[in-house]
């Protein structure tokens, strides 16, 4: 059993992630083992997460899982972690160089990956049924009609997230998002535990990846505008509409505003429990053995 849950599973995609890095893959000087990444992950969680958050984006203007602004090579990043950045809130750290490099290994492994920042409430261990991947593939492509919205590794429809295992380039856009999507884009894949996948099929509205969230305002004059929510506060809304234009509204001018429900239907009652377990097994099988 992996101790780091969602993040740990993503880390398995490290080789692919580095190749797809939005930053500069050439800057990586060293090769790392999974043990390095895990050790760095533990150090990151304990020492970095409180400011930088689980998604590497906790400090405004800094996105550790996207690019490094002040250093590029592994050794320079490690030195920066050890020494801190004088005159800023980045403190020095009592790490050996080997330890600091494991943190770099972890950060490299996360490039292009946006872990979910809104963990789904656990709903137990799911149905407990053992699924059959081959049967699941049949349901996915046939009775379930899943391919009418979802692609696997780029092959198929793009209305919903690609459910293949490869981390997409950052900033993947969905239909509600128009170009650019939400902050950091989305993983574009459902949370990779059996229970979470089952939940996504039965309660698709419980957690929608940021780029696929569609925000709607209805003005008091009756105009309806849909698009990606960029920012909001107690009094106002800033969004990009589906034509790609920036729009701002005062809430006092609106009749209603909010996220629309997920476009995906619930499969509760549409698929038998065994069929759901089969689809879950199929999707998990795309990620390879755990």
């Amino acid at each position, binding site marked *: 059993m992996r101790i780091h849950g969602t993040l740990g599973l993503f880390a398995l995609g490290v080789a692919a992630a580095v190749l797809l890095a939005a930053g500069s893959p050439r800057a990586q000087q060293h090769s790392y083992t999974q043990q390095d990444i895990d050790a760095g992950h533990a150090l990151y969680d304990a020492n970095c997460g409180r400011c930088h958050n689980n998604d590497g984006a906790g400090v*405004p203007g800094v996105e550790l899982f996207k690019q490094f602004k002040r250093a590029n090579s592994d050794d320079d990043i490690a030195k920066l972690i050890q020494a801190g950045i004088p005159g800023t809130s980045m403190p020095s750290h009592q790490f050996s160089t080997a330890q600091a490099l494991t943190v770099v290994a972890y950060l490299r492994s996360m490039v292009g990956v946006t872990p979910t920042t809104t*963990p789904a409430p656990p709903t137990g261990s799911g149905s407990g049924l053992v699924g059959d991947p081959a049967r699941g593939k049949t349901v996915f492509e046939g009775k379930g009609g899943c391919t009418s919205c979802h692609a696997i590794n780029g092959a198929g429809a793009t209305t919903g997230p690609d459910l293949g295992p490869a981390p997409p380039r950052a900033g993947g856009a969905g239909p509600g998002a128009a170009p650019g999507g939400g902050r950091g884009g989305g993983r574009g894949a459902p949370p990779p535990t059996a229970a979470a996948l089952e939940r996504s099929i039965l309660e698709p509205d419980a957690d929608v990846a940021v780029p696929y969230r569609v925000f709607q305002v209805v003005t008091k004059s009756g105009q309806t505008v849909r698009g990606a929510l960029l920012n909001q*506060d107690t009094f106002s809304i800033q969004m990009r509409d589906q034509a790609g234009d920036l729009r701002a509204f005062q809430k006092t001018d609106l009749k209603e505003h909010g996220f629309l429900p997920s476009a995906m239907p619930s499969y509760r009652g549409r698929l038998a429990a065994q069929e759901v377990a089969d689809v879950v097994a199929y999707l998990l099988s795309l990620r390879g053995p755990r």
Partner: protein
Amino acid sequence: MKPVVLAIAVVTAAVSLGAQSRAVTSDRILKASAEPQNWLTYSGNYNGQRYSALDQITPANVKNLELQWVFQVRTLGAADKFEATPLVVDGIMYTVSPPNDVVALDAVSGRVFWRYDYANAPAARVCCGRVNRGLAILGDRLFMGTIDGKVIALNAKTGAVEWQKQIDRPEAGFSITVAPLVVKDKIILGPAGGEYGIRGYIMALDPKDGNELWRFWTIPEPGQPGSETWTGPAWQKGGGPIWTTGTYDPDLNLMYWGVGNPGPDWNGDGRPGDNLYTDSVVALDPDTGKLKWHYQYTPHDEFDYDATQVPVLADIQFNGQPRKVLMQANRNGVFYVIDRTNGQFLLAKPFTKVSWVDGWDAKGRPNRVQNPTQEGTLVYPNNQGATNWYSPSFSPRTGLFYIPTWADTFSTYRKTPGPESVRFTEGQMYTGQFPTMALPAMVGGTTNNRRPQDGYGLIQAVDPKTGTQRWAFRMDDVTDSGVLSTASDLVFAGGREGYFFALDAKTGSLLWKSMVGGQVASGPMTYAVNGKQYVAISAGNNTFVYALRQN
């Protein structure tokens, strides 16, 4: 109406004094409520109510507030926050901005008398951005803790260093972010560093030279009372930091301090037991540092629920009886009322969604129903807490307790069972695994496109007799703002969205707002000079000061 008359009389007295500071004696601090034109301690006075008798700004005229001046500090680091509450003494404002820059300002114009910039040692380690919550003053001396573990005494007239004392070792994670509290002839404070395996304490220093006068360890050593709540050597790195200013009841001669989390934060397997006095309020004799009583809000904490929130003191009717109470809105999501004479538990009531506890026994021990697990446990409120260091307020006029709230937030806590998964290395964080959060912990993001179910902010009013909510002002983002209430029944607060606003203290209606363009992460305060009332708030890299438009 009596308080109104008093306030006007005192403000009038200030006119003749103008902006000419007099020495702040301990007697003046004791009677701070009698000079509401000044703000002499972190919370304004000893009871921690952040209630001001000033009443020139009212619900009727608050819409006429306009900006008087802005003071810009050096640009802060990305995770730094301007958390200090300024002091105002006879027309002069003293404040401290990150990391440890002190300035004396003309409180009418914002112009600088003097400035003192301190360069911290590179070894300084802070868990959560470089912050300082403010200064203390006694006589003509200002006292500041530094993030590299020093206390520095400055001459209030010149900004010159009169003494500095290294309190503890920054390379081991000790920092001082708390605004010290002056009680009689002593400076009281303690170190932050609960994420670094420190052993915390509250200490008294001699204002003359910084010499230590007494020390109360927040983690007892073997043989001392409370040591039975620890196992093995865990107490040596047990945490229990001090980072928010305590309160003081001169009649009982007792100080009240909230104590922070046990270490390691998120894995308690190496510290079986309740882990006193972490996550507790301790009542201490300020002359000796001796413990009179304690109450532990979160025994054996594994959720980082520091109990450092200001313990607010008031005399209220409770169950039909006059009681001297201590009220605390705790990071763990629960509002508490305690008899401050003896520590008797009177009331505990969640003020937002709380999942870790489902009740309390007669003595106030919580029935905890959740712990971190290997698979992950979803817990309300989140790791940053339902509230935190941001000061609440209590208005004796409305009888309501005002809480800056992170509403309906959650974290998933995971741990690898067994103590060996958390190793101690001096100067490294000693915590366990950081829990997931849907909200940025330290500093608000540039934008907020989150869903309502990911959490939101409230300024809410709670009736301390019952713990029930009377009203709530809802914000789309959470708030790191303190709250101020006034004798004219106004409540001032702000939030991460960058609004500073005034609410009706009785109803929560929004009466006025100003966009300050940066996260409000400090407590609003009010003062008067030459008969004119001002309201000050620090947000982003600036302090903003408002007063009523003339004419």
